[in-house]
């Protein structure tokens, strides 16, 4: 049967089982929107800005194991979407972004709302396509979904010119896809797996360092079993939180720039390091030569060969999907007669206990000023540690990562790689739509929330009862902290003046707003907010404006060159 390109596009989304498309209409996608209108299977969520469409699709994908889908128009629709696409790219999140394009005969003529979408997005997508013929739409979208989800996941953009969406072609959705130039390795090499197990068994001071790859490959169960069998301490990256239960006694907390003392010291002093779906980035290991200055053996599991030996040389590399490789390690480990060296590990854990006793996440609570850490701890208590928590970027993000102890994967939704302010609220929309009955909290700051605050309107339209936890310290706190540490307290443009009345603003959008100014009101306000299951509640916490995030490994320093709160 012959269908128009627009009909084919929607049929493909239906075939892929797409539940939600996040988007914003415009001239170049009118035919596609017309087809959306004529059916009910694929639901469209109208955002207020294209960046939010992509973040919402991203939040949807991160909190499920599905591909997020966004639909935007040409020109400004695409450029607005770029930040969202780059955010997903840096964190390897599977997305398919469909963009309209000016008619093929206009391409290159600087037509109205024309940009080179494929060119603009090329450095921040896993792959992209310009579809020039309606007969290619189905095969291209099939490839797009496959590419987004397989191997190292990532965003894929499909640019469809307006005339192509209006011309007819025969439709049949391909059952399989084969791309001769793309064959990601899923199974790990068994020889390497055996070498890794031997190395781990001989370790005196083993350490497991697990990242976002564990979450993306749904390998939390396998990882937890492996860590228990090895008896080793386990740390998570910012992207990996929830990949290993925070309440487990072998968990030493997050590592990196704002990681715990025990996690960072463990990284620096272990003799065998097992890196699982993590990429040794600059916020994680700090100064590379400092990290390399002590000898240790490194085993690195990653689906992307290019992530291995990129910043740190490794001894055993295992390319493959984390879930498969960790299962392989478990199998070999279980069948081995040798057991981990218990005597050596006893000393190792004694050393870790010593580092732990530094209590690097301790803070002085106050009865006068609301401490942001206290808000997050109370949030954890009120939600029984069971909420989906999205965040924006800055101090509040670090505090949420440090103090909300995630026991489950896909619960912690944040922009780790790109560090995109404005991510939290739209991401929470995607999470809430994916999990209608669940508790969803968006931890944000008064700076970040204003970067996509218009989405309060979307939340109203779709009745999304998100709880916005704004840690309002009247500063771009992380910028202010760096200025305090490294720029002589010159707070150049890091203050937030002329702030809106967030309570009134929330009310203006049809939501509930609560102002919280006293520490004694924090718990009550959170209780009240979460009791209102059908309403979005915006909690404006006026927090201590001078609070800093500790511990801190300053940029360019080594993991053991840490600033602890008590040092100051």
């Amino acid at each position: 049967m012959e269908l128009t390109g627009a009909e084919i596009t929607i049929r493909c989304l239906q075939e892929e089982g797409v539940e939600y498309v996040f988007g914003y209409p415009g001239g170049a996608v009118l035919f596609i929107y017309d087809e959306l209108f004529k059916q009910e299977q694929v639901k469209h969520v109208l955002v207020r800005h294209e960046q939010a469409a992509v973040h919402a699709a991203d939040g949807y994908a991160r909190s499920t194991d599905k591909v997020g889908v966004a639909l935007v128009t040409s020109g400004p629709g695409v450029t607005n979407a770029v930040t969202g696409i780059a955010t997903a790219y840096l964190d390897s999140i599977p997305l398919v972004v469909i963009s309209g394009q000016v008619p093929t005969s206009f391409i290159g003529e600087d037509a109205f709302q024309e940009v080179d979408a494929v060119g603009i997005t090329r450095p921040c997508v896993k792959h992209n396509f310009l579809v020039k013929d309606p007969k290619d739409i189905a095969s291209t979208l099939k490839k797009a979904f496959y590419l987004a989800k397989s191997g190292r996941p990532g965003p894929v953009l499909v640019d469809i010119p307006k005339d192509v969406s209006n011309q007819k072609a025969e439709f049949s959705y391909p059952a399989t896809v084969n791309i001769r130039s793309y064959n990601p390795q899923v199974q790990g090499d068994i020889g390497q797996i055996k070498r890794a197990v031997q190395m781990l068994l001989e370790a005196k001071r083993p350490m497991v360092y697990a990242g976002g790859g564990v979450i993306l490959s749904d390998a939390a169960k396998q990882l937890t079993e492996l860590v228990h069998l090895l008896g080793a301490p386990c740390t998570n990256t910012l992207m990996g939180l929830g990949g290993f239960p925070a309440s487990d006694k072998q968990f030493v907390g997050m590592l990196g720039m704002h990681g715990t003392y025990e996690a960072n010291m463990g990284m620096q002093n272990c003799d065998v390091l097992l890196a699982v779906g993590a990429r040794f980035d600059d916020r994680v290991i700090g100064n590379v030569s400092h990290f390399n200055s002590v000898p240790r053996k490194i085993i690195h599991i990653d689906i992307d060969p290019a992530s291995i030996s990129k910043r740190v040389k490794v001894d055993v590399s295992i390319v493959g999907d984390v879930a498969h490789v960790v299962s392989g390690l478990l199998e070999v480990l279980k069948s081995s007669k040798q057991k981990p060296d218990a005597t050596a590990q006893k000393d190792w854990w004694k050393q870790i206990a010593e580092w732990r006793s530094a209590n690097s996440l301790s803070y002085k609570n106050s009865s006068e000023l609301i401490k942001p850490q206290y808000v997050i701890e109370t949030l954890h208590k009120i939600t029984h540690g069971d909420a989906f928590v999205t965040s924006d970027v800055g101090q509040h993000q670090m505090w949420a990562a440090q103090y909300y102890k995630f026991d489950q994967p896909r619960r912690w939704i944040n922009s780790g790689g790109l560090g995109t302010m404005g991510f939290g609220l739209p991401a929470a929309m995607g999470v809430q739509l994916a999990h209608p009955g669940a508790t969803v909290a968006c931890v944000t700051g008064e700076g970040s929330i204003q970067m996509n605050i218009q989405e309060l309107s979307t939340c109203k339209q779709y009745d999304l009862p998100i709880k916005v936890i704004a840690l309002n310290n009247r500063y771009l706190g992380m910028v202010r902290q760096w200025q305090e540490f490294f720029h002589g307290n010159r707070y150049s443009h890091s203050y937030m003046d002329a702030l809106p009345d967030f309570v009134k603003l929330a009310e203006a959008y049809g939501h509930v707003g609560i102002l919280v100014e006293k520490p004694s009101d924090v718990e009550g306000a959170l209780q009240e907010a979460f009791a209102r299951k059908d309403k979005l509640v915006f909690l404006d916490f006026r927090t201590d404006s001078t609070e800093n995030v500790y511990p801190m490994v300053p940029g360019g320093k080594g993991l053991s060159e840490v600033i602890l709160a008590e040092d100051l």
Partner: protein
Amino acid sequence: MRHIISLLMENESGALSRVSGLFSARAYNIESLNVAPTEDPTMSRMTIVTSGSDDVIEQINKQLNKLVDVVTVMDLTDGDHIERELMLVKVRAVGNDREELKRMADIFRGRVIDVSDNTYTIELTGTELKLDRFLQAIDHALILETVRTGASGIGRGDRILKL
């Protein structure tokens, strides 16, 4: 160190820009790059001459392999290979220089492929070094124009780059 990387990629619009974009985005060097379709018109073969430390070259190979349009990558420098570059040089050829330039072209096994009253155009193939040497050997003031393809490379014997 100088490396010659050869790759097969889908002959699709935009494929070249993915490769060149990768080099600029990740701050890798490109000394030269050439590309043309192969005997299989759906595939193009590209030769890139680049330089960098062993770590950088390893990353270049891996990052190239990661591009969805790239079918296969080979670092020719890892083994025995042959490389050739084509150069066309237009020189001012009048009076005594006419004889001298012809002789020099012969010595370098070049051919004069276009003649006018005042100029020769000389075609020369060989390694990058040989072409450099030819340019050094003739009077610099006589050179009107040069155009070079950059190196193309192929493995020796059974070293074959194919799908």
